[in-house]
Structures are given as structure tokens and as C-alpha cells.
């Protein structure tokens, strides 16, 4: 016995001091920061960094939800259009001034947004689980649906908040700050923390990972697979709603271009953050890191003057791939 103990404990690869896989995205981020500092002096200015972090709020928050969906073995392509749709509904409601046109209206509007968001998520969830349709197709379909509904609500134009007072009342939610920290940044941290807690510390999170890792095993263990999957999509919907609550006060309007390509950005953030698309693993903090990474790349592109505006896309693509290569090489250390 004693010997086997020694024996076996000798063999199993002892977990490395630093878990490089988890650390990789942060290292990549650090590299990018350094790179940015070289590219442009104004990059590291407080103002600029604050702007970038604040802007990354939408993708970061949606990314938390995306991490849940992807960890559960699904995917959601509809988040961008969903954001546009939720925003439109929210604004249209607030324009009715129900709730007294003041804080009341705002509160009700946000509640409504949350409701609509989760309903959209529920729709995605039910079609994929009960209807047993590949999530890719389901959410591609709803992507078209939500987008079309937005354009239809807006008559092809834009839906703007009418009341100026309400706007000024609402603006701080994006532009304001608590104790020097811009509100959206605080919110990102809060949401990510909550997300991490739910995924790692609650039974639901554990079941989610189990479902994503092996559906059969989960089923045999008495985990309600369909419910877990569906809830994941609802969580995604809620995150979209929260992102919208921060988005609307910025420009006070929803247009046909609202949320365009957010789905790709969110998924990219998740994957760059170290969550594999096949499910079973979820790295909430990594996703946050991925979202920042994307936003910063864009920022550097504009700040730097040596790239033709035509080629920006190419450089961005390259940077993302390189960032992944950096990660990969780090992760490999775990093998050793």
C-alpha cells in the first residue's frame, strides 16, 4: 500500500506551479499592452485606457454569457441582433414615458430589457434542446429574425430616445464613474465575478460543464441536460440585456448597425480567452481578457499611423492569430 502510494504519486503529472493554459491569455494581453505603448505614446494615457476598457464592456459582458453557452457545448450567433432588438424595445418603451418619465421609467425599461433578453435566450434554448436543432442553425435563424424585427421597428431608420431629460438622467450609466472607476468597468468586473462564481462554485455551473464535457455521462448522472442547456442560453440572453443597458445611454439610439458582428467578437473573445469550442471547459476571466484584447487591437490600429486604413483588417487578423500563437506556445509548457 505504502509503496503504491509512493509509486503512483511519483507518476501522476504534478499540477504545474503556474497553470500556463489559464495564464496564457493574460500574458498575451500584457504583450499587446507593451506593443501598444511602443506604437503610440498616447496609448498608455489614462484617458485612452479608460475609453478602451469602457468600450469593451459590451463584448466583455456578452462574452460571459457566451462562455456559458460554449462551455455547455452550444454556440449563439444571435447575440448581436438580439442586442439591437432588446435596445429597440427598451427605447420604444422609455419613449412612452410610462413610470413617470424619470428614474421610474429607466428602472422599468431595464426590467423590460432583462425580460425580453431572457425570452430571446429562452427561445434559442428551447429550439436547440426541445427541437433538437444544431445551435449553429437555430441561432443563425434567430439572428436573422431579431435583426429584421429591429429594422422593422425602426422603419429602416433609427430608434432614438426622445426625452432629453431622460437621456441626461441615463447618460452617467455609461459615462459616469464611481470613485474614479468608470461605471461600465465596475460592471464588467461585477458581472465577470458573478459569472465565475456561478460557473465554478454552484451546482448549476458544475452540471453545465458536465453536460458540455460528456452528454451521456451527465444524463446517466441524473443531470437534466435540456434544462441546463436552456438555462445557459437564458443566461446569455440576460448578459445581452445587461450589455444593452450600458449601450443605450451611450448614443441613446438603436440602429440597423447596432450590435453588428458582436456575435463574432464575443465568440472570439471566448476562444481567445482559452475556452475551447467543443465545450466542457469555461474560462470566464479569460473571456474578459479576450474582450479587452480585441478592443485594444482596434484602438492600437487607430492610434498607430503606419497602417493604411484599407489594411487594418489584415493587421487585426494577424495580431489575433499571433496572440493565439503566443498562448499556444505557453500552454505547451504544461506538457513538459
Amino acid at each position, binding site marked *: 500500500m505504502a509503496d503504491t502510494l509512493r509509486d503512483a504519486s511519483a507518476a501522476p503529472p504534478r499540477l504545474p506551479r503556474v497553470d500556463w493554459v489559464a495564464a496564457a491569455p493574460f500574458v498575451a494581453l500584457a504583450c499587446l499592452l507593451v506593443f501598444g505603448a511602443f506604437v503610440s505614446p498616447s496609448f498608455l494615457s489614462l484617458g485612452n485606457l479608460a475609453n478602451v476598457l469602457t468600450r469593451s464592456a459590451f463584448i466583455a459582458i456578452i462574452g460571459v454569457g457566451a462562455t456559458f453557452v460554449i462551455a455547455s457545448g452550444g454556440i449563439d450567433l444571435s447575440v448581436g441582433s438580439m442586442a439591437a432588438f432588446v435596445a429597440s424595445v427598451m427605447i420604444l418603451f422609455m419613449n412612452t414615458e410610462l413610470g413617470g418619465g424619470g428614474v421610474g421609467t429607466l428602472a422599468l425599461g431595464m426590467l423590460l430589457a432583462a425580460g425580453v433578453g431572457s425570452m430571446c435566450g429562452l427561445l434559442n434554448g428551447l429550439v436547440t434542446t426541445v427541437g433538437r436543432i444544431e445551435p449553429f442553425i437555430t441561432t443563425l435563424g434567430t439572428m436573422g429574425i431579431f435583426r429584421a424585427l429591429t429594422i422593422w421597428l425602426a422603419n429602416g431608420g*433609427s430608434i432614438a430616445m426622445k426625452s432629453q431629460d431622460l437621456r441626461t438622467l441615463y447618460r452617467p450609466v455609461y459615462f459616469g464613474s464611481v470613485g474614479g472607476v468608470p461605471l461600465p468597468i465596475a460592471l464588467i468586473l461585477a458581472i465577470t465575478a458573478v459569472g465565475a462564481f456561478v460557473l465554478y462554485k454552484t451546482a448549476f455551473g458544475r452540471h453545465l460543464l458536465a453536460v458540455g464535457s460528456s452528454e451521456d455521462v451527465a444524463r446517466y448522472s441524473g443531470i437534466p441536460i435540456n434544462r441546463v442547456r436552456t438555462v445557459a442560453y437564458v443566461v446569455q440572453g440576460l448578459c445581452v440585456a445587461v450589455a444593452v443597458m450600458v449601450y443605450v445611454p451611450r448614443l441613446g439610439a438603436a*440602429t440597423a448597425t447596432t450590435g453588428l458582428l458582436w456575435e463574432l467578437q464575443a465568440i472570439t473573445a471566448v476562444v481567445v480567452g482559452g475556452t475551447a469550442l467543443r465545450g466542457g471547459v469555461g474560462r470566464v476571466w479569460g473571456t474578459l481578457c479576450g474582450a479587452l484584447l480585441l478592443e485594444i487591437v482596434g484602438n492600437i490600429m487607430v492610434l498607430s499611423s503606419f497602417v493604411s486604413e484599407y489594411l487594418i483588417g489584415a493587421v487585426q487578423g494577424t495580431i489575433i492569430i499571433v496572440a493565439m500563437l503566443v498562448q499556444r506556445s505557453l500552454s505547451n509548457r504544461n506538457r513538459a
Partner: protein
Amino acid sequence: QTKTVTVAVSIPAADHGWTGGVVFQAERAKALLEARHPGLKIIVKTSPDGASQANALEDLTTQGIDALVTLPQNSDELTDPLRQVKNKGVFVTVVDRALSDPTIQDLYVAGNNPDVGRVAGEYMKGKLPSGQVVVIRGLPIVIDEERQKGFDAAIAGSGLKVLDKQFGNWSRDDAFKVMQDYLAKFPKIDAVWCQDDDMAVGVLEAIKQAKRSDVQFVVGGAGMKDMVKRVADGDAMIPVDVLYPPAMIATAMELTVANFYDQIPVRGRYIMDATLVTKANAKEFYYPDSPF
């Protein structure tokens, strides 16, 4: 007896502010005209890109139409497909974007894109004998290119210096980002040209947030109602707007229909020049009920 005429209208999908305006105006004109002429049937179809517009053209012609009013996504791509429509004996009205082969179009209603840039440039040149401007372009497509060329030509040799050019994808959000970054990058910016009023919204918000006083004004384009209103109200940040009305589609439809019902000659070229909207004339161009 009521003469039956079928007119097809093929336009870009409402994927940003201006095209959204186009679709709205088309639908409105459809309602008006059909009410005026019993027997008139107008089919409005939108397409997200050149290829699908070519598809739409095919499908519309197979349905059998007398006239086509189209705002091509891209003249190079759609010249050949339109030629086919023409060869089927259909009356072709082209709006806004000149075809590479002008013999195809019976009627050309042009909202002169290079002029949008030129007028904006001339205005800025006049307002700022010397200064630093930043430019926010739309999407990398032909119209954008034409507007940009017009602008560059207009300010050539003046004291104006273009600090930077970036694409804002005709989206307020992207324009907001780009402007934020411009403000971080350049300590002094005198004026902004952003090609499209939708993007101007984002630009203004970014300036407001940065509390920067060096930026004297923003010139947009297209005549979005909020912007026209600001001009009318004498907003210092939006002193002017360069008209590029989505309503031009309606004009084209009016004329095309007239060709069939009221025996008046309409063949030819109608150039709607890019009017400079100022505090003085703003009232005329303010349509509160338009979504754009």
C-alpha cells in the same frame, strides 16, 4: 380605362441610416403613386449586396415588369445585369450611381457623390483658412471613394491638413470609437468631416465626453433630420449639412411613373446637386416624419 403598369424598384437593404431612409422613401412613394394611379403596381425589393441585387433583378424581370427603378449597390457589378434587363425592353431608371455604360439607362437621377465631398471640402476651406481636420469614412465601397476624392480635390492646396482617415462603417458606434481614438491621438483637431450624418451622431458624443474645446465643428452629410434640425437651430458644432437626400429614390419613381401615365418626356439625366444646408435654408429640408 385604367392602364396597368408594373414598376419594380430595386434598392440596397436598410443596413444603415441612409439606405434605411431610401427604403422608407421608396415605400412612401409607392403608397402615394399607387393611390394616384389605379392599375399601377410597384414592387419594392431590397438586397444586401451586389450579387443578391443581381439576383433580385433577374427575379423581378421574370415576373414581367414595364419599368425598373434601381439604386445599384455598385455600378461596376450591376452594369451587365442591368443591360440584360434593358434588353428585355424594360424602361430603366438608374438612381445615384452612374453605370459604366450610360447607354443602358433611359433615365438617370443622380445624387452626385463626388459633390458631397467637394461641397464639404469647399465649406471647410472657406471656414478654416488653415487647420487640422480628421476624416471618418464610410464603408470601403465606390460611393465612399467618390466622396473622398471630391473632398481631397476640394481642399487640395489649401491650408487644411488631413491628420487621419479611418472607416466608421456608417455606424454611430464605430464612428464614436474612432473619434474617441482620434481625440486621444491628436492634441489639436480643428474640424471633423464624417461623410454621413449617422456617424456624426457618434462623433459629437465622443467630443462631448472628451470635453475638448479645440474641435470647432463637424460636417456630416446626407441630410438626416436631427442634423438638419441642429443646423436650423444654429448649433455651433453642426453649422452646415451637405444634402444627399434618400428621397431622391422617390423623385426617380415619380418621374418614371410620369413617363407612363402623364405623356411627358422624362428620358435624360437629372443631377440633384449636393445642396449645402445652412441655417438660412435648413427649414426647407426638414422632414420631421421621416425615420432618417
